[in-house]
C-alpha cells in the first residue's frame, strides 16, 4: 500500500507541457481541457508524477458544457482515458485552465466535481487520480491517492532547454542571498541561489572529471551531493583527482610486505576524498557517499531521487544505467568525458576531444546516439569471464588523461546545468534540440554543438508502449536481479524503486 503523503510534484518534458499549454491557451481566453497520463515515482518529499502522455480534449466533443460548472470533460473521453490508465498502469490527471498568470487555484465547483467523480475513477484505475488547473505561469493540483488520502501539488518541473519550475503561486520573495554567495547570486539572483541550495545532484564516477564536478557543485552551493564510485585512488590518479594527495595512496611496499594488513593499509576511497574536499570548504552541502557499483540497489535508489545526474564514469554499464534512470524517472543528466587517441605503435596523437552531453528524456538518449556499445556492456558485466575475453584483443592499456582536458568538459557541463536550472539559457534563434552535445577539439581550437539523434522505436526514449519513458517505479531498470540487497554501507536505508524479482 502506498504510504500517506501530503504533497506531490509533477515532472513533464517541455514538449508535453508545450502541447498542453498550446491547447489550453490558444488565445481565445476560453476554458479548455485535457488529460495527462503519468508514471508514479517516490520523491524526496512525497510522490512524483511523471507525465508520459497528453490526451487533448476536443472542444464541444470531448470538452463540453457542464451540468454544474461551465464546462467538463465528456464521460466518453473520461472513460477512454481511465481505461488506458488502468490497462497501462498510469495515474490519471484531468487538466483545465483558468484565466490569470502568476497564481491559480481550483474553484469550489472544481473541488466539488473532484469529490463527486474521483473516488469512482480511482476504483476503476487502481492508481492515483487527480486534477490540475493552469494559469499561464502557475499550476495547482489535487491528487487522490489509493489509500484514500488527498494531497496538494507542490510544484511542477518542466524539463527543456531550461528547467522551469511552476507552482500554484509564483514566489515574490525579495530575500537577499547570503554574503557567502554574493558574487554568483548577482548572476543567479537570490531565488536562483536558493534553488541551487535545494538541489540534489548525483555524481557517478569520482575520478578526474567527477571529482572536479563535485568540487564545483559544492562551491556553487548545491544543497546535496550523492557521490557514487567503488574505486580507491591510485598514485596515477593524484594529478587529476581534485582533493587527493599522494598520502591518500597506500604505499605499494607496505602492501607487499604485509598483505594480511591490506585493509588497514588500503588507499582512500575516491568518494571519501571528494567528501573530505567538500568538508574542507566549510560550506553547507550535505554529502552522501556510496562506494558501490552504479547498479547496486542503493546507488540506483539514490539516483532516482536526484534533480540532476553528472555521469563521469567511463563504463558502458554506467552509461546504460544512468540513461535508463533519465528516461524512467525523467531526471536530466549530463555525461562528461575525454578521449585522447594515441597510436600504440607510433605514439602519434590523434584528434583529442572533450565532450559534455546533455541527456534529457526527449533528446540525447545515449542508446539512440550509439554511445553504448553492446559488446563492451557484455564484457563489463560478465566479470572475470569478460576480462579474460578482452585479453584476447590485448590487455587494456591505461588511457591518456590530463586534468585540463577534464576541466573543459566539466566546466561546460556544470555551466549548462546551472544556467538551465535557473532559466538563464538563451532561447536559440532556430529550432534547436532541447539537449545538445558539446564537443571541444583543443588541438584544432574548435568547438561544436552536435544535434543528438532520437529513434522513436528506442526501448528507452521511444514513444511506443513498451519504452521505459516516465514509468517510474514500474520501470524495469538494467540491473542484476536481486532477492535481498546488501545492507547499505552508509547513508540512510533506501527502498528499491524498481519492481523486485524474487525466485
Amino acid at each position, binding site marked *: 500500500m502506498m504510504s500517506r503523503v501530503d504533497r506531490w510534484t509533477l515532472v513533464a518534458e517541455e514538449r508535453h507541457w508545450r502541447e498542453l499549454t498550446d491547447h489550453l491557451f490558444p488565445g481565445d481566453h476560453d476554458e479548455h481541457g485535457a488529460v495527462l497520463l503519468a508514471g508514479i515515482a517516490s520523491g524526496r518529499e512525497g510522490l512524483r508524477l511523471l507525465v508520459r502522455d497528453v490526451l487533448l480534449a476536443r472542444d464541444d466533443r470531448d470538452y463540453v458544457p457542464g451540468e454544474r460548472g461551465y464546462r467538463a470533460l465528456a464521460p466518453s473521453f473520461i472513460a477512454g482515458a481511465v481505461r488506458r490508465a488502468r490497462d497501462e498502469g498510469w495515474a490519471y490527471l484531468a487538466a483545465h485552465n483558468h484565466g490569470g498568470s502568476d497564481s491559480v487555484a481550483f474553484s469550489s465547483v472544481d473541488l466539488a466535481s473532484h469529490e463527486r467523480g474521483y473516488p469512482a475513477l480511482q476504483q476503476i484505475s487502481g492508481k492515483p487520480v487527480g486534477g490540475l488547473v493552469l494559469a499561464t505561469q502557475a499550476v495547482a493540483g489535487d491528487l487522490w491517492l489509493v489509500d484514500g488520502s488527498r494531497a496538494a501539488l507542490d510544484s511542477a518541473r518542466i524539463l527543456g532547454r531550461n528547467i522551469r519550475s511552476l507552482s500554484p503561486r509564483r514566489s515574490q520573495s525579495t530575500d537577499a542571498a547570503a554574503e557567502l554567495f554574493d558574487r554568483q547570486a548577482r548572476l543567479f539572483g537570490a531565488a536562483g541561489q536558493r534553488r541551487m541550495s535545494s538541489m540534489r545532484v548525483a555524481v557517478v564516477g569520482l575520478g578526474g572529471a567527477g571529482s572536479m564536478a563535485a568540487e564545483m557543485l559544492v562551491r556553487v552551493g548545491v544543497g546535496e551531493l550523492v557521490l557514487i564510485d567503488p574505486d580507491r585512488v591510485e598514485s596515477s590518479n593524484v594529478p587529476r583527482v581534485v582533493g587527493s594527495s599522494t598520502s591518500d595512496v597506500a604505499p605499494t611496499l607496505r602492501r607487499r610486505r604485509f598483505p594480511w594488513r591490506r585493509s588497514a593499509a588500503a588507499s582512500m576511497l575516491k568518494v571519501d576524498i571528494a567528501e573530505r574536499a567538500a568538508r574542507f570548504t566549510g560550506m553547507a552541502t550535505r554529502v552522501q557517499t556510496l562506494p558501490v557499483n552504479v547498479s547496486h540497489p542503493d546507488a540506483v535508489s539514490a539516483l532516482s531521487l536526484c534533480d540532476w545526474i553528472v555521469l563521469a564514469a567511463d563504463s558502458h554499464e554506467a552509461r*546504460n544505467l544512468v540513461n535508463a534512470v533519465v528516461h524512467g524517472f525523467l531526471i536530466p543528466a549530463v555525461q562528461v568525458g575525454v578521449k585522447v587517441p594515441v597510436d600504440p605503435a607510433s605514439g602519434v596523437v590523434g584528434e583529442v576531444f572533450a565532450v559534455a552531453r546533455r541527456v534529457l528524456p526527449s533528446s540525447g538518449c545515449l542508446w539512440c546516439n550509439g554511445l553504448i556499445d*553492446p559488446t563492451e*556492456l*557484455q564484457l563489463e*558485466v560478465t566479470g572475470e569471464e569478460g576480462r579474460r*575475453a578482452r585479453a*584476447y584483443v590485448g590487455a587494456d592499456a591505461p588511457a591518456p588523461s590530463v586534468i585540463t582536458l577534464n576541466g573543459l568538459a566539466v566546466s561546460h557541463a556544470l555551466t549548462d546545468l546551472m544556467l538551465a536550472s535557473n532559466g538563464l539559457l538563451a532561447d536559440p534563434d532556430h529550432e534547436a534540440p532541447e539537449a545538445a552535445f558539446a564537443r571541444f577539439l583543443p588541438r584544432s581550437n574548435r568547438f561544436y554543438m552536435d544535434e543528438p539523434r532520437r529513434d522513436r522505436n528506442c526501448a528507452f526514449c521511444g514513444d511506443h508502449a513498451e519504452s521505459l519513458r516516465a514509468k517510474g517505479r514500474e520501470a524495469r531498470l538494467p540491473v*542484476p*536481479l536481486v532477492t535481498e540487497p546488501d545492507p547499505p554501507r552508509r547513508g540512510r536505508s533506501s527502498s528499491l524503486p524498481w519492481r523486485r524479482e524474487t525466485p
Partner: protein
Amino acid sequence: MAEVYAAGAPRLTDAVQVAVDEVRRTFPDLSVKAEPDGQGGVYVVIRDVDVGNLYTEPSTWLGFHISYLYPGSDVYPHYVRPDLARADGAAHGPGLSATTWAFGATSALQVSRRSNRWDPRVDTAALKALKVLAWLKDPA
C-alpha cells in the same frame, strides 16, 4: 533434450528466458544446457553441434553467456571444445584462441566474433549462435 531448472533456482530476466527458449527451438534435436548465473542471465551450452569437415572432430559443444542486460548486451564471446583442430593441420586464424571459460573453469577455444552492429530489436542469442557456427564452418 532440454534440461529442467532445479526448483528454487535463481530466475532469469524475461528477455533471457525468451532467448533460451529460442535457442532450444533453433536447435531442437540437440541438448541445450542452461545454467542461471544468479543475476538474471544464463550460461548456455549446446552439445554435439556439427562444424562440418574443416576440423578433425566433426562436432563440438558451443557455449556462451547471455547476461542480465540482454538484449541490450551482445552475446560475446562464444566457446568451443579446446581440442578442435583443423583437418589440414593449419593453425587457427584470428578469432580463435585457447582460453579457460569462467563457467566451470572449462578449457576451451574462445571464438571472438563481436557484433559491431548489434541491434537489440533484431539480434538474438540464437541468431548469433547460428552466425558463429557458420563462421566456424567457413572462417575465410
